[in-house]
């Protein structure tokens, strides 16, 4: 972390507080930041949500258009997830093609909603093999204070809830609600000095040794996971994070 002098200084400060069992913002180790969800925030989108998770703000917009299915899945709608870390959100973000951070965010969010079958894609077929609904989940990070994975995941789930498929886009007279069936909720932790912290802030992420995201479903099953950063987890720590994710995920789900 030598490149980042501020992170070195902050690491000291964060470490000392953690040794006393305190986080910089006063939270408990296993406590999420305050979460506010505003749905139907973008009128031009078929579904949308604006999420505030502490000082992290994410807008997710869902666009649904008619298109062709992939040749290997003729009876399934198409789900595409994209994340943009725009320069507005942080001094470290640059405009241009997605870098590996935004690719990882997009792919981890995608993995959660795809593997958790958040939306029943089999109900998004207009004509098998020919025409299906293509759903774009676009994650727009507008203020970055850490934990984009969970903010984007929660925003996507919230946006699904009120999303509609506009029949007029395929010459149909009626709109239909998006066939939502599950809510795969992800919970992310970081490890600093061997301590597991839920919902890391940007500063905590910058000094973290390792990160783990676990997505779970209503029935407590696991549907997606991603470990990141250079540090490591013991098996016991992994099981602890899985348990945390199930508990906190259920709590977040009850907010919808």
């Amino acid at each position, binding site marked *: *972390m*030598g*490149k980042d002098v501020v992170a070195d200084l902050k690491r000291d400060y964060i470490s000392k507080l953690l040794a006393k069992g305190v986080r910089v913002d006063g939270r408990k180790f296993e406590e999420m930041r305050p979460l506010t969800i505003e749905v139907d925030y973008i009128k031009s989108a078929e579904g949308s949500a604006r999420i505030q998770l502490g000082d992290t703000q994410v807008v997710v917009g869902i666009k649904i258009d008619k298109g062709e299915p992939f040749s290997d*899945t003729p009876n*399934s709608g198409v789900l595409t997830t994209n994340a943009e870390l725009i320069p507005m959100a942080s001094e470290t973000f640059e405009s241009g093609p*997605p870098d*590996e951070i935004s*690719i*990882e965010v*997009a*792919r981890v969010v995608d*993995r959660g909603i*795809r*593997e958790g*079958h958040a939306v029943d*894609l*089999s109900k998004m077929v207009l004509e098998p093999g020919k025409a299906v609904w293509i759903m774009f989940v676009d994650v727009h990070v507008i203020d970055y204070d850490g934990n984009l994975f969970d903010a984007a995941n929660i925003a996507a789930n919230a946006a699904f809830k009120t999303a509609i498929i506009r029949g007029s886009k395929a010459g149909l007279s009626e709109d239909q609600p998006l066939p939502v069936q599950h809510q795969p909720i992800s919970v992310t932790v970081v490890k600093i000095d061997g301590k597991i912290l839920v919902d890391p802030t940007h500063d905590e992420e910058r000094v973290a040794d390792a990160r*783990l995201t*676990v997505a779970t*479903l209503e029935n*407590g*099953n*696991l*549907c*997606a*996971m*991603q*470990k*990141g*950063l*250079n*540090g*490591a*987890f*013991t*098996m016991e720590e*992994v*099981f602890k994070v*899985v348990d945390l994710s*199930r508990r906190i995920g259920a709590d977040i789900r009850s907010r919808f």
Partner: protein
Amino acid sequence: MGGTPLPANVKLIDENGRRMDGRMPEEMRPLKIEAGVLKRADGSAYVEWGNNKVMAAVYGPRECHPRHLQNPERALVQCNYNMASFSVDERKRPGPDRRSHEISKIISEALTNVVFTEYFPRTSIDVYIEVLQANAGTRCAGLTAASVALADAGVPMRDLVASCAAGKVANTVVVDLNKEEDNFGQADIPVGYVPRSNEIVLLQMDGDLTLEEFNKGLHMAVDACKKVYQIQRDALKRRYSARAADEDVPAPIVEGAMMREGQ
């Protein structure tokens, strides 16, 4: 994975609990590792794992490009995972895609954990992984090969990273899924494991698993990683005992490069 229905004639697990290729649930596909297979690279390794063929090469520590990525205190481990266009049934468009970016990132992170990066400030250690033939489990094969290639390059490391996946097919938890099992299976958990510290440095999961299945899968994957580790070590020993005989110089002590102080 997930939505794709299983063709009626394919049985992923038979009456005797055997898998379609005859393996038992905890049984890995045959794994062959060879160290030092490329001349130009500072270190290299070739892995044949079931029907996967993966090559890894290491260059460095060398000057870090692009320069703004230089770290004045550490070396940067930069992995590049690439699939050959002919490595899969339907031709893959050449060049990096989102999947390969992600895999490169998590493999770089896993390898950084075991490399003494503080010995080579400002440099870059470049790891190139080429998937020549793919049959599920290429990121594990790539990480396994890359670790051996790093050791072959003489890069000081705490240990090798051994990697293997677990997963669920036909409601059975198994290790090292082949392509059909991956396509028609219910879950996949790639794991990268460091035996000496008993820690996990790469972990992903997709699909659907109960808590019990995940616990079982992670344990099975780690057990498989321990077997992979043995084969990695054997490959390095073979390489250096062979070279010693050739050149009539004492064999370098491979374990020396993996010595770990303290922790």
